[in-house]
């Protein structure tokens, strides 16, 4: 009788284990797999990718790119989203992670001249795809840093926006060209 009770206890325990979803992982493995999960302690940043300036310059756009899948009708390629900030993360790291997660096309190249990664194209939109003054620029908290995105180390709460400009930044609020 006692034996039976013991066996039933074991069965209940096993069933509980099975239904709770067993995962046998080391701490390191757990950390690796869950590194990008947002917890109350995580530091985070926000990222948006937009190309709404193209909507106002449609005629300049490379005809091969005049489709919704390249230029969404609301001009937003990636809606504002929160991402975990890892230690030492740069603007490029966050962009790269977001792009991978959302399976958006991107082409980058490392430039020795700028000692930084240079973003050539996002979602098939490249430099000069929409006129001779077009290309990708980024802001952090509304400011246009004048250097490569893999050199900009982020802080908790930073707000990153990648915008496609059709006018060397002026249409997205950058005034480098005006400085004299």
């Amino acid at each position, binding site marked *: 009788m006692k034996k039976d009770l013991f066996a039933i206890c074991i069965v209940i325990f096993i069933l509980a284990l099975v239904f709770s979803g*067993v995962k046998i*992982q080391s701490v390191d493995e757990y950390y690796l797999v869950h590194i990008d999960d947002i917890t109350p302690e995580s530091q985070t940043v926000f990222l948006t990718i937009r190309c709404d300036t193209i909507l106002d310059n449609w005629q300049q756009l490379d005809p091969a790119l005049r489709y919704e899948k390249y230029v969404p009708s609301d001009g937003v390629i990636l809606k504002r989203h929160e991402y975990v900030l890892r230690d030492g993360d740069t603007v490029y790291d966050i962009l790269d992670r977001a792009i991978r997660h959302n399976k958006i096309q991107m082409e980058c190249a490392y430039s020795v*001249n700028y000692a930084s990664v240079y973003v050539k194209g996002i979602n098939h939109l490249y*430099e000069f795809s929409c006129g*001779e003054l077009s290309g990708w620029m980024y802001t952090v908290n509304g400011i246009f840093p004048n250097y490569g995105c893999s050199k900009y180390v982020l802080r908790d709460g930073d707000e990153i926006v990648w915008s496609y400009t059709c006018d060397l930044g002026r249409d997205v609020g950058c005034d480098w060209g005006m400085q004299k």
Partner: protein
Amino acid sequence: MKRLWIVIFMFFGITICCCGSLLASAQQDISSRISSAIDGIIEWKKDDVGSEKDGFLLNDEFLTQAGTTAGDWYPIALGRLGITDNATGYLAVLNDLIDKRYATKDKLDRAKATEWHRIALATLASGGNPRRVGEKGSIDLIADGTYDRRDENGDGILGKQGINGFIWGLITLDSMYYEVPKDAFYSRDDIILNILNRRLADGGWALTGEESDPDITAMALQALAPYYNSEKNYEYLDASSETIIKKARQAIDDGLSVLSELQLEDGDFSSWGTVNSESVSQVIIALCSLGIDPFNDERFIKGEKTLFDGLMKYKNSDGGFLHSFVFDNDNPTADPAKSNSMASEQALLALTSLKRLKEGKRRLYDFRPEQSEETKTLIKRTQEEIKGLDEFSPNSEIQRVYDLYNTVSASERSYVTNYAYLAELMEFAGLEFAEEEIEYNSGDAGIITPITYFTESDKRECESLPLTLTGEYRAQVLRLWQKIICCEDFQDKNYYYIKLEKAKNEIDDIAAETEYIKNEIKNKLYPFDSISLKDRNTVNSIYERFIALSEYDRGAFEKSDVEGLIKAKKQVDTLFAATVTVIVLSVVALGIIIFVVLHVRKRKKEKLSRQMTESEE
């Protein structure tokens, strides 16, 4: 008395000698300063790419930059300095890269014609032929990148990226005085007109806006330089959209005035709000291209400061050049105290221009074989004769000098640097200009493919290649492969050919495999949350292929590629382990349940039989 004269004479003689040698030594001083600045940049860059002082600048590390903006300008400068370095290696990697990029839909680039221009110039400078690029020699960078630059609908896209496309298109077209076929999309004049059409109100040029930019203005002048002596009138629109008719010369002179205006008191310039070294480098190249000696032209000497002073201001103690002294709050990484690769490469090109001008060589971007002594003498004589003219010279005299000028071959006349004065006198005297017909180089004309030898050291390199290759040997294999293709026949050529062909295929396979794995990771392993047990085979197969690569080739992956792969692998492993555990535990649980049930039943039976025996009793 006589002795006094002798003393006076001797005194003058000594003074004259002194003056003469002072002048000569000043010239020598400048030349040696130019040369030592050139050496300084080359040494700095060698150090930057981890090469020894007597090693190659274009070493294997540098070759990873072949075909990019950061890479191509150094070999262009080296080639124009006559420094061979590792030009064969550079050309080999470039060729391979062009082949691979031409296999894609957009070839070198969808929008940027300047990719073709820069790579064509680097090919020329490395001793290659931009009209016959790639392993089969079937790629023509000149046609594809200049006069036939079109999109899939047949529209011209030379200027898709703006004025740079036209400027560098023209520079590339004139690098070997290539002929433009009659049925080409752009004629030479089309390209010239596109540059002239974009002149701003003050006569300069800019990427955008109404204010002239020194860099773009200087580059426009570099492109127009070969047309300075042309009497052809170009009809185009000025900044206020009014039709004007001008010669290239007039537009160039306007541009020079703009640059003179923009020059700062240190001799340098400011572009996009920053006083910097690249702008003055471009202006020096522009002046040298026009045959103007920057040391003597008053328009470009501010106080005591010349353009050369303006450039040398940025020379750093390690030999490299700085971009700017201005510390930019927005840009804390552009350290004003650190040599900058782009600033150094442009300074190197400017110094190369100066050196070539001093040595009587061709313009920086005129890659044709150097002028014969005969041509040089004729040009010098013509210049002397022009110098001898003035407004009182009789028409017959002017005509005679003009006839002499016309004996210079049309394609060399742009090197007669004071022709503008003769033209002015001609016009004033009402004399007629003759028709000029420049003979351009059609096809491959003018290109001499250098014969290379497969040396003993090349053979040793071949023998010392490891049995299993990795991407680390890519540059070396490509260089040896290029050499064995072009070299003269020798005894064991076939043996080395087969060996290298195999090696080349092997490194191509590695590159293709790496590319494949990278794409698989991007396409199949994201988003991470959606990775489930059914992806296990996919993940494992990608992982196995990755692990099969050499350590060097794995190192070439992006950090996030590796992370994505490892994460996915852990995830499927964990999920798999969990499933196995669940199954095992379920089996165990089932076993126990069966055992308990059987046990209970057995006991019940026993109890029943016991009761029955009891009742029987």
